[in-house]
Protein backbone atom coordinates (compact mmCIF):
# COMPACT_ATOMS: atom_id res chain seq x y z
CA UNK A 1 0.00 0.00 0.00
CA UNK A 2 1.37 3.38 -0.99
CA UNK A 3 1.27 5.85 1.92
CA UNK A 4 -0.37 8.54 -0.23
CA UNK A 5 -1.79 6.85 -3.32
CA UNK A 6 -3.38 3.85 -1.59
CA UNK A 7 -3.24 0.16 -2.48
CA UNK A 8 -2.41 -1.05 -5.99
CA UNK A 9 -5.34 -3.46 -5.93
CA UNK A 10 -8.07 -0.97 -4.97
CA UNK A 11 -6.66 1.74 -7.25
CA UNK A 12 -6.44 -0.64 -10.22
CA UNK A 13 -9.86 -2.14 -9.59
CA UNK A 14 -11.62 1.20 -9.29
CA UNK A 15 -9.89 2.48 -12.42
CA UNK A 16 -10.96 -0.58 -14.44
CA UNK A 17 -14.52 -0.60 -13.07
CA UNK A 18 -14.95 3.12 -13.83
CA UNK A 19 -13.33 3.23 -17.24
CA UNK A 20 -14.06 -0.13 -18.87
CA UNK A 21 -17.31 -1.84 -19.81
CA UNK A 22 -17.98 -5.57 -19.82
CA UNK A 23 -19.02 -8.49 -17.65
CA UNK A 24 -17.46 -8.28 -14.20
CA UNK A 25 -15.32 -11.41 -14.63
CA UNK A 26 -13.73 -9.89 -17.72
CA UNK A 27 -13.09 -6.66 -15.84
CA UNK A 28 -11.45 -8.64 -13.04
CA UNK A 29 -9.27 -10.43 -15.58
CA UNK A 30 -8.11 -7.00 -16.73
CA UNK A 31 -7.33 -6.06 -13.11
CA UNK A 32 -5.24 -9.24 -12.82
CA UNK A 33 -3.45 -8.49 -16.10
CA UNK A 34 -2.50 -5.00 -14.97
CA UNK A 35 -1.38 -6.10 -11.52
CA UNK A 36 0.68 -9.00 -12.87
CA UNK A 37 2.46 -6.54 -15.15
CA UNK A 38 3.24 -4.09 -12.37
CA UNK A 39 6.34 -4.32 -10.22
CA UNK A 40 6.06 -3.22 -6.63
CA UNK A 41 9.29 -2.31 -4.93
CA UNK A 42 9.45 -3.26 -1.27
CA UNK A 43 12.61 -2.78 0.78
CA UNK A 44 14.53 -2.28 -2.48
CA UNK A 45 13.34 -5.58 -4.02
CA UNK A 46 10.83 -5.92 -6.83
CA UNK A 47 7.75 -7.91 -5.80
CA UNK A 48 4.84 -9.25 -7.77
CA UNK A 49 1.28 -9.47 -6.58
CA UNK A 50 -2.04 -10.36 -8.18
CA UNK A 51 -5.59 -10.87 -6.98
CA UNK A 52 -7.39 -14.21 -6.83
CA UNK A 53 -10.94 -14.40 -8.12
CA UNK A 54 -13.56 -16.91 -6.99
CA UNK A 55 -16.97 -16.86 -8.59
CA UNK A 56 -20.27 -18.66 -8.21
CA UNK A 57 -22.10 -16.20 -10.47
CA UNK A 58 -24.83 -17.90 -12.53
CA UNK A 59 -25.24 -15.11 -15.07
CA UNK A 60 -23.25 -12.29 -16.56
CA UNK A 61 -22.95 -9.30 -14.24
CA UNK A 62 -22.69 -5.85 -15.79
CA UNK A 63 -22.13 -2.95 -13.43
CA UNK A 64 -22.01 -0.17 -16.04
Amino acid sequence: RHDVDGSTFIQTLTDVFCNRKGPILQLLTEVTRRMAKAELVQEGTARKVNPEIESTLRKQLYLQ
Partner: protein
Amino acid sequence: MEEEMIHPRPLQEEAYDMSGARLALTLCVMKAREGSEADISALEHMFKQLRFENTTKRDPTAQQFQEELKNFQDVIDNWKEPVSCAFVVLMAHGEEGLLKGEDGEMVKLDDLFETLNNKNCRALRGKPKIYIVQACRGEHRDLGETIGGDEMVMVTKDEPQTIPTYTDTVHVYSTVEGHLAY
Protein backbone atom coordinates in the same frame (compact mmCIF):
# COMPACT_ATOMS: atom_id res chain seq x y z
CA MET B 1 -18.47 -44.15 -42.09
CA GLU B 2 -19.37 -40.53 -42.43
CA GLU B 3 -18.47 -38.49 -39.40
CA GLU B 4 -21.29 -36.49 -37.89
CA MET B 5 -20.57 -32.78 -38.06
CA ILE B 6 -20.96 -31.02 -34.75
CA HIS B 7 -21.75 -27.34 -34.76
CA PRO B 8 -21.42 -25.84 -31.31
CA ARG B 9 -23.87 -23.06 -30.67
CA PRO B 10 -22.91 -19.79 -29.07
CA LEU B 11 -23.78 -19.45 -25.40
CA GLN B 12 -27.10 -17.93 -24.59
CA GLU B 13 -26.10 -14.91 -22.60
CA GLU B 14 -28.20 -14.21 -19.58
CA ALA B 15 -27.44 -11.25 -17.34
CA TYR B 16 -28.51 -10.25 -13.86
CA ASP B 17 -31.27 -7.67 -13.74
CA MET B 18 -29.62 -4.53 -12.38
CA SER B 19 -32.66 -2.24 -12.57
CA GLY B 20 -33.27 -2.27 -8.81
CA ALA B 21 -31.36 -0.70 -5.96
CA ARG B 22 -27.60 -1.14 -5.74
CA LEU B 23 -26.30 -1.07 -2.18
CA ALA B 24 -22.70 -1.02 -0.98
CA LEU B 25 -20.88 -1.21 2.34
CA THR B 26 -17.23 -0.27 2.86
CA LEU B 27 -15.54 -1.27 6.12
CA CYS B 28 -11.99 0.00 6.49
CA VAL B 29 -9.46 -0.17 9.29
CA MET B 30 -7.38 3.01 8.92
CA LYS B 31 -5.15 2.50 11.98
CA ALA B 32 -1.58 1.66 10.88
CA ARG B 33 -2.77 1.45 7.27
CA GLU B 34 -1.45 4.61 5.61
CA GLY B 35 -3.01 5.32 2.22
CA SER B 36 -6.44 4.03 3.27
CA GLU B 37 -8.05 7.41 2.71
CA ALA B 38 -6.99 7.33 -0.97
CA ASP B 39 -8.61 3.92 -1.34
CA ILE B 40 -11.84 5.12 0.30
CA SER B 41 -11.92 8.14 -2.03
CA ALA B 42 -11.39 5.97 -5.11
CA LEU B 43 -14.15 3.60 -4.00
CA GLU B 44 -16.59 6.44 -3.31
CA HIS B 45 -15.94 7.81 -6.79
CA MET B 46 -16.48 4.35 -8.29
CA PHE B 47 -19.70 3.72 -6.35
CA LYS B 48 -21.07 7.06 -7.49
CA GLN B 49 -20.30 6.27 -11.11
CA LEU B 50 -21.78 2.77 -10.86
CA ARG B 51 -24.90 4.12 -9.07
CA PHE B 52 -24.35 2.29 -5.81
CA GLU B 53 -25.59 3.77 -2.56
CA ASN B 54 -22.53 3.28 -0.35
CA THR B 55 -22.05 3.47 3.40
CA THR B 56 -18.48 3.72 4.69
CA LYS B 57 -17.48 2.81 8.24
CA ARG B 58 -13.98 3.59 9.41
CA ASP B 59 -11.99 1.66 12.00
CA PRO B 60 -14.42 -1.12 12.89
CA THR B 61 -13.43 -3.50 15.67
CA ALA B 62 -13.63 -7.22 14.94
CA GLN B 63 -17.09 -7.35 16.50
CA GLN B 64 -18.18 -4.27 14.55
CA PHE B 65 -17.20 -5.95 11.27
CA GLN B 66 -19.79 -8.60 12.07
CA GLU B 67 -22.35 -6.09 13.38
CA GLU B 68 -22.02 -3.81 10.37
CA LEU B 69 -22.59 -6.73 7.99
CA LYS B 70 -25.67 -7.74 9.99
CA ASN B 71 -26.97 -4.13 9.92
CA PHE B 72 -26.35 -4.07 6.16
CA GLN B 73 -28.36 -7.29 5.80
CA ASP B 74 -31.24 -5.72 7.79
CA VAL B 75 -31.12 -2.62 5.59
CA ILE B 76 -31.22 -4.72 2.43
CA ASP B 77 -34.04 -6.96 3.69
CA ASN B 78 -36.10 -3.88 4.62
CA TRP B 79 -35.30 -1.82 1.52
CA LYS B 80 -38.44 -0.19 0.14
CA GLU B 81 -37.84 -1.34 -3.44
CA PRO B 82 -36.27 -4.46 -4.99
CA VAL B 83 -32.52 -4.73 -4.47
CA SER B 84 -30.46 -5.84 -7.47
CA CYS B 85 -26.96 -6.13 -6.09
CA ALA B 86 -24.83 -5.81 -2.96
CA PHE B 87 -21.19 -4.75 -3.02
CA VAL B 88 -19.04 -5.14 0.10
CA VAL B 89 -15.47 -3.87 0.46
CA LEU B 90 -13.42 -5.04 3.45
CA MET B 91 -10.03 -3.42 4.09
CA ALA B 92 -7.81 -4.28 7.05
CA HIS B 93 -4.69 -6.14 8.07
CA GLY B 94 -5.27 -9.85 7.82
CA GLU B 95 -4.17 -13.45 7.64
CA GLU B 96 -5.57 -16.32 5.60
CA GLY B 97 -9.33 -16.34 6.23
CA LEU B 98 -9.12 -13.63 8.89
CA LEU B 99 -9.36 -9.86 9.17
CA LYS B 100 -7.94 -7.83 12.03
CA GLY B 101 -10.27 -5.28 13.57
CA GLU B 102 -9.19 -1.90 14.92
CA ASP B 103 -9.00 -3.50 18.38
CA GLY B 104 -6.48 -6.13 17.19
CA GLU B 105 -9.02 -8.94 17.46
CA MET B 106 -9.61 -11.20 14.47
CA VAL B 107 -12.85 -11.91 12.61
CA LYS B 108 -13.42 -14.82 10.23
CA LEU B 109 -14.12 -13.84 6.64
CA ASP B 110 -16.43 -16.85 6.24
CA ASP B 111 -18.60 -15.56 9.09
CA LEU B 112 -18.89 -12.20 7.32
CA PHE B 113 -19.74 -13.85 3.98
CA GLU B 114 -22.47 -15.96 5.64
CA THR B 115 -24.47 -12.85 6.48
CA LEU B 116 -25.59 -12.09 2.94
CA ASN B 117 -25.90 -15.62 1.55
CA ASN B 118 -29.16 -16.86 0.04
CA LYS B 119 -30.19 -18.41 3.35
CA ASN B 120 -29.65 -15.37 5.54
CA CYS B 121 -30.56 -12.47 3.25
CA ARG B 122 -33.96 -12.98 1.65
CA ALA B 123 -33.84 -9.80 -0.47
CA LEU B 124 -30.58 -10.91 -2.11
CA ARG B 125 -31.64 -14.45 -2.99
CA GLY B 126 -30.37 -15.18 -6.46
CA LYS B 127 -28.94 -11.66 -6.68
CA PRO B 128 -25.25 -10.91 -7.20
CA LYS B 129 -23.14 -10.24 -4.13
CA ILE B 130 -19.64 -8.85 -4.69
CA TYR B 131 -16.95 -8.96 -2.01
CA ILE B 132 -13.67 -7.13 -2.41
CA VAL B 133 -11.09 -7.91 0.27
CA GLN B 134 -7.98 -5.75 0.54
CA ALA B 135 -5.93 -7.55 3.17
CA CYS B 136 -2.91 -9.80 3.61
CA ARG B 137 -3.59 -13.56 3.49
CA GLY B 138 -0.20 -14.63 4.85
CA GLU B 139 3.45 -13.64 5.04
CA HIS B 140 4.80 -14.81 1.68
CA ARG B 141 6.38 -12.34 -0.72
CA ASP B 142 6.40 -13.14 -4.42
CA LEU B 143 9.53 -12.26 -6.40
CA GLY B 144 7.85 -13.42 -9.62
CA GLU B 145 9.10 -15.66 -12.38
CA THR B 146 10.84 -14.72 -15.60
CA ILE B 147 8.86 -15.25 -18.78
CA GLY B 148 10.03 -15.46 -22.37
CA GLY B 149 12.16 -18.60 -22.05
CA ASP B 150 15.13 -18.62 -24.41
CA GLU B 151 13.51 -16.15 -26.75
CA MET B 152 15.15 -12.80 -27.18
CA VAL B 153 12.95 -10.38 -25.35
CA MET B 154 13.24 -6.66 -25.05
CA VAL B 155 13.29 -5.82 -21.36
CA THR B 156 12.20 -2.31 -20.58
CA LYS B 157 11.34 -0.59 -17.35
CA ASP B 158 7.70 -0.27 -18.41
CA GLU B 159 7.37 -3.92 -19.45
CA PRO B 160 9.08 -6.06 -16.82
CA GLN B 161 9.52 -9.63 -18.05
CA THR B 162 8.36 -11.23 -14.84
CA ILE B 163 4.96 -12.40 -13.79
CA PRO B 164 3.61 -13.39 -10.38
CA THR B 165 4.01 -17.06 -9.45
CA TYR B 166 0.28 -17.76 -9.28
CA THR B 167 -1.42 -16.58 -12.48
CA ASP B 168 -3.04 -18.09 -15.59
CA THR B 169 -4.90 -20.77 -13.70
CA VAL B 170 -8.59 -21.54 -13.33
CA HIS B 171 -9.57 -23.56 -10.27
CA VAL B 172 -13.05 -25.00 -10.54
CA TYR B 173 -14.31 -27.22 -7.72
CA SER B 174 -17.39 -29.41 -7.90
CA THR B 175 -18.74 -27.88 -4.70
CA VAL B 176 -18.16 -24.93 -2.41
CA GLU B 177 -15.75 -25.12 0.56
CA GLY B 178 -16.85 -27.41 3.37
CA HIS B 179 -19.63 -29.11 1.38
CA LEU B 180 -20.16 -32.60 -0.08
CA ALA B 181 -19.85 -33.22 -3.78
CA TYR B 182 -22.26 -35.79 -5.21
